[in-house]
């Protein structure tokens, strides 16, 4: 056991993955010499050499496409795209090829690869550096989409993603890279993809979130508890596959739901949750499912980030609104 940040846990997991799988490679811009812009791959070039920790030219589509070729040749590539906002040049490779090669070839060629996307705002970065567009990956058949929010899960989910025989979009909350620390086992362990984590139990309302927004959600639950409202807090951890069962079980007890995400509201993954919940638990719903989300605007620059990011206040207000019904 050591006490690690999310970045530290990911670093450990990457090292262990490269250790265990001779066929694993880490590939991306500046992942080697500098250890990545967030230093998540710090030290790995030294340990595993330039054949397996590969600094590439600035070409995201090429990175993903070449990694797919490697995967089909029997490697297990772990791709880093520097920021989720720079994954769009690779969108075609991801949607048209990575997600499809298994089906196109009826299992003959496969894409056991992980695409790591640091995502989310709150660090005062320039435009394009604060994206939360997980929904445009969750809608793509053939992908899995995973979002850890704690050091423990970051390691467990990353190792599960590396083991997975299918491509995984692995969203890493930038804001949480170094915001929290916890004990993380040294040894190899995996957190199954598709299992949500009930982080806090409660019977008055269900709060559902993932990734960076878990921090605000957690804080809101604490404030609500102080006011006598017991919120059940679910960290989805994985959007595809989705652990609907855990969600439904909670909703059936509480009857009230607030979904929290940083992405723009329209067409965000919160919509999918609301659709599934109402379809499966309509009779249990005591109030409409509310969404506390980023607005349908461009993520603002540093001086205005606070106007955009869902806050504990907004979450609490939404819960209060559902309790009034």
């Amino acid at each position: 056991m050591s006490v690690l940040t999310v970045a530290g846990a990911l670093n450990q997991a990457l090292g262990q993955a490269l250790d265990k799988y001779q066929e694993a490679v880490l590939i991306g811009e500046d992942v080697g010499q500098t250890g990545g812009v967030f230093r998540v791959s710090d030290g790995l070039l030294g340990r595993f050499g330039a054949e397996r920790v590969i600094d590439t030219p600035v070409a995201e589509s090429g990175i993903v496409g070449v990694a797919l070729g490697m995967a089909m040749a029997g490697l297990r590539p772990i791709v880093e795209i520097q920021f989720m906002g720079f994954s769009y040049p690779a969108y075609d490779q991801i949607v048209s090829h990575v997600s499809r090669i298994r089906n196109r070839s009826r299992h003959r060629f496969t894409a056991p690869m992980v695409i790591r996307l640091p995502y989310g705002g709150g660090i005062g970065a320039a435009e394009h550096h604060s994206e939360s567009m997980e929904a445009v990956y969750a809608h793509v058949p053939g992908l899995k989409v995973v979002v850890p929010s704690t050091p423990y899960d970051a390691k467990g989910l990353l190792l599960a993603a590396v083991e997975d025989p299918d491509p995984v979009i692995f969203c890493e909350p930038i804001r949480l890279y170094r915001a929290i620390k916890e004990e993380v086992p040294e040894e190899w362990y995996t957190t199954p993809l598709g299992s949500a984590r009930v982080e806090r139990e409660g019977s008055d309302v269900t709060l559902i979130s993932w990734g960076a927004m878990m921090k605000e959600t957690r804080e809101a639950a604490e404030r609500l508890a102080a006011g006598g409202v017991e919120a059940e807090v679910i960290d989805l951890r994985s959007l595809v596959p989705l652990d609907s069962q855990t969600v439904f079980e909670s909703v059936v007890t509480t009857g009230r739901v607030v979904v929290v995400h940083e992405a723009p509201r329209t067409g965000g993954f919160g919509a999918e949750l609301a659709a599934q919940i109402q379809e499966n638990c309509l009779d249990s719903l005591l109030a409409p499912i509310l969404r506390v989300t980023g607005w349908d605007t461009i993520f603002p620059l540093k001086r205005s980030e606070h106007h955009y990011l869902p806050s504990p206040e907004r979450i609490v207000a939404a819960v209060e609104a559902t309790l009034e019904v």
Partner: protein
Amino acid sequence: MLQILTPSGALLTEEPPLSLDLTRRLYRAMVQARVYDHKGSALQRQGRLATYAPFEGQEAAQVGSAAALEPTDWMAGTYRDAAAMWMQGYPMELLLAGRTGDERGGSPPVGVPVLPPSITVGGHMVHAVGLAWGSRLRGENRIAITYFGDGATSEGDFHEAMNFAAVFEVGCVFLCQNNGWAISLPVERQTRSESIAEKAIAYGMPGVLVDGNDVFAVYQATAAAVERARAGEGPTLIEAVTYRIGPHTTADDPGRYRSTDEAEEWKRRDPLERVRIYLSERDEWSPEWQEELEEAAADEVDRAVTAAEALVAFDAADIFSGMYADLPEHLLAQQSEAAGE
């Protein structure tokens, strides 16, 4: 432009680059290709194939290059590269199955190192780079070849593939069949470079211009590039200058954008005819043999068509079963729903 055998069958080098035996084999493969291609269009007209992309005129470019490979070398080509693909082991019936609209067409037997034909323009070249690179990291002695058209050179992914291959000295051969057209756009309006081969300079890579209708030239250039790749010296770009005699696909009407004169002109540079003359002058060709070849080729296509059409159609559950190694719950549920369970 490298040319070894002229359209009239004259040899421009002292020694032929291929034995007579191999020449006969490549001629046979080109006859096979021509017969397959005509049959493909005919089947489409009968409604037995979905849209079909003819490659008449491009037989030498495909056959000559594929002949230079080892059986384990990777190949990533396009919708128009059937001959190259089956030469590298892709079963003809699967190519046809794909064209009937059956997913199993994309699934060559284990051991066949050929990706299913690329339908997007430009997206597959990076895969070839990754295949060769991945095999190198695994210590395998395999290189890759990727086929693409003149139009594909305009896509960003062509650029990224070429650059990655060059920077990392990947053993990948880039074989461009410049057939003059990308649907309705002539190559002169696709790019202003003097040639496509010349684009290699931008990547510090050798670029070779060959007469794509000369199977000797194509073979020789590809063999050299393959040798270079296998020796770990990196990639090569080959531009095989050829012509698409037919329409872009069976849904296309070339009358809208080009004169028939152009195709007639190119027919005089036919890739098969010059080899026929060459062999004939050496008493290695006869009308009887030609007939034999054509019959065998037609039989082979018929056999493949029968096999492709014999595939029992998917039921609803099958469209799910290719999606993941293990279907997640929501897909299992949808699968049952689709199957009406």
